[in-house]
C-alpha cells in the first residue's frame, strides 16, 4: 500500500493557499515524521489529508487511486486519525470510546455488535491496555488517553494512521511508551504519518522526515539526511549541535550506525 500526495496545495480558502507543491509518499510499515515551526502548516496539511478541509489542488492517492470521491466512511476505513487527547464533554467509558472506531463499518441506525466488541478487544490487547477498559475515559492520564485513542483508530482497521503530535503534553515516560507503540504498529505493516516538535523523535522512530517551511516543503528524505544543523537553523532559528551518541539503535528505522541527538545551543 502506498499513500501519496502529489502536487498538493492546501489551505482554507482557494485564493490563500497555505502550502504549495507538497509531494510525498508513505508505504506500508513506514513512519513519516513531519517537522516544522508553529504555524508552518502542519495542522493544515493534516486536515487536508483527512479530508476535513477540501484539498485545493493536487491529488491524494491510496495505491494510485484518488480518494477525492470517497465518502467519509470510506476514508475512515483506510485512514485512522489520532488527535491530541482532549476531554470530551461527557463521561464515556474507555470501551465506549474505542467502539467509536467502528462507526465507519456500522449502518446508519446501528450500534456496535458483538463482532465490533471483539475487534475493539483485539485493539486493546495489541496495545496492552486491558487494565484501562473498565475506567472512565475522562479519568485517565494524558498518556493513557493517547493509547485509548490509538486503540480507537486501530478499531477502524486502517492502513494508515495519522497522528497530530502524539507526544505533546506527555511526560518523558509516556512519550517513550506511545512512541514505542507507534513503532510496533509500523512493524505490523501500518503506514504512520505523525507531526512532531522533536527532531530527536524523528531520529529514533521514523523512516522518513518531511520538513515544512514558508508554505512548502523544505526537504524530505531519510532523517539522517534531512535533519541537519543547517536545516534546524532554517526551520526553527535555533543553533543546534547534532551529536552521534555511539548508542546502537534498537530499531533499524533510521539505518544509521548510531543514534543522533540534537542539542540546542542558542
Amino acid at each position: 500500500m502506498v499513500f501519496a500526495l502529489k502536487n498538493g496545495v492546501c489551505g482554507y480558502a482557494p485564493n490563500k493557499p497555505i502550502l504549495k507543491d507538497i509531494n510525498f509518499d508513505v508505504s506500508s510499515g513506514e513512519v513519516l515524521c513531519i517537522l516544522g515551526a508553529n504555524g508552518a502548516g502542519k495542522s493544515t496539511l493534516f486536515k487536508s489529508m483527512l479530508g476535513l478541509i477540501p484539498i485545493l489542488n493536487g491529488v491524494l492517492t491510496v495505491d494510485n487511486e484518488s480518494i477525492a470521491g470517497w465518502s467519509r466512511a470510506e476514508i475512515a476505513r483506510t485512514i485512522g486519525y489520532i488527535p491530541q487527547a482532549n476531554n470530551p464533554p461527557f463521561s464515556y467509558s474507555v470501551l465506549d470510546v474505542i467502539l467509536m472506531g467502528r462507526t465507519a463499518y456500522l449502518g446508519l441506525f446501528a450500534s456496535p455488535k458483538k463482532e465490533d466488541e471483539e475487534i475493539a478487544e483485539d485493539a486493546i490487547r495489541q496495545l496492552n491496555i486491558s487494565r484501562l477498559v473498565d475506567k472512565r475515559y475522562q479519568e485517565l492520564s494524558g498518556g493513557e488517553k493517547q493509547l485509548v485513542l490509538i486503540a480507537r483508530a486501530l478499531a477502524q482497521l486502517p492502513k494508515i494512521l495519522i497522528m497530530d503530535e502524539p507526544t505533546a503534553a506527555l511526560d518523558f515516560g509516556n512519550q517513550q511508551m506511545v512512541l514505542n507503540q507507534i513503532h510496533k504498529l509500523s512493524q505490523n505493516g501500518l503506514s504512520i504519518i505523525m507531526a512532531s516538535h522533536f527532531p530527536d523523535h524523528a531520529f529514533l522512530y521514523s523512516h522518513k522526515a518531511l520538513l515544512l517551511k514558508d508554505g512548502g516543503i523544505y526537504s524530505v528524505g531519510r532523517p539522517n539526511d534531512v535533519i541537519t544543523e543547517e536545516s534546524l537553523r532554517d526551520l526553527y532559528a535555533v543553533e543546534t549541535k547534532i551529536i552521534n551518541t555511539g548508542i546502537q539503535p534498537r530499531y533499524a528505522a533510521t539505518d544509521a550506525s548510531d543514534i543522533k541527538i540534537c542539542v540546542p545551543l542558542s
Partner: protein
Amino acid sequence: MNQNATRLGKKKLLRVKMSVIIAVFIVLFFGSFNFGRYDGISLWNVVLIFVNKVFPVHGDWPKSFETVVLYIRFPRIIAAVLIGGALALAGTSYQAVFKNPLVSPDILGASAGASFGAALAIFNSFGAVWVQISAFIMSLIAVGCSCFVGGRIKRDPSLALILSGIFVSSLASALVSLMKFLADPLDKLPTITFWLLGTLSNITLTDITWALIPMAVGAVPLILLRWRLNVLSMGDDEAKALGIETKRLRFVVILCSTILTAASISIGGLIGWVGLVIPHLARTIVGSNNKILIPAAIIIGGSFLLLVDNFARSLSSVEIPLGVLTAIVGAPFFITLMLRGKEAS
C-alpha cells in the same frame, strides 16, 4: 476473564436500572389517575374502566368516574408523558450536538419563537387550534433563522449556532413583550400571560392526536440514530475522521429535536427545565452512552413531568401553572445534581 465478568455484571446492573425506571413509570402512570380534585377513584376502577373500553366488563362504578378518567385525566396524563419524554429526548440530543451538557432544547430559540407565535395568534383573536399551530410554526421559523444566521458565522459551527440562537431568542422575546404591551389588558394580556406559564389543564385528546404526528416524526430518527450521537459529541473533526458526515447528521438531529420541542410547547406552553435537568438525572443513573441514555431519559422525562403535573393539579385549590412548578422543582434539583457531580459508571 475477571474483566469480562465485571463487564457482564455492569450490563446486568444496567438492565436492572432500566427495569426500575420502567417500573416507576408504570406505577406513576396508573397512580396519577388518583390525583386531582375529584376523589375516590380506586386504581381497580381505573383498570376496569380501561378494560371496559376494549371489551365490556361488568362493573358498578358511577358514570362520572368514567368521564373523569377517560376524558379529563387520561388526556392530561398522556400529554404529560409525551411532553416530558419529548423534551427530555430533545434536550439529550441537543446536548450531544452542542457537545455541552448545559444546553437545553430552547437554546436555538424554539421556546421564544413559540411564545411569539402564540402571542401573535392570541393578539389577533385566533382560536385555540390556531394558537397551537402558530406557536408550532413560529418555533420552527425561529430555529430556522438561528441555523441560517449561525451557518454564516465563520466560527466553530456549534458555537456559531449558540450565538445566533441567543440573538434570535432575545429578538422573539422582545416581540412577545411588544405583543403584551399592545394587548387588551383585560382580556388578551392575561391569556397570553397564562399561555406563557405553561399548563396542561385544557388539553384534549384531539390536541394530543395532532401533536403525536410531529412528535413521532421527531422522535423516531433520533432514537434510531442515538448511538451516532456519542461520536458526534466528540467534536467535529474527530467525528468526521471516524466516518460521520457531521453536517448532515447535525442538521437531522437539530431538525428532529426542534420539531419535538415545538410540538411540546405548542400544546403545553412554556415548560422549562425538563430538557436540561432530565438528561443530567438520567446520566447519573445509566451513564453517558446515548444508546442507553436516550431511552432512559425519555421514560424519566415522562415520569418527571407526570409527577410534577400531579402536584400542579392537587397542591392547592387553584391550579399551579406547570411551567412555574417545573422551574421551582427543576432549579434546586439541577443545582443538587451539579454539586454531587457523580455519573454512573
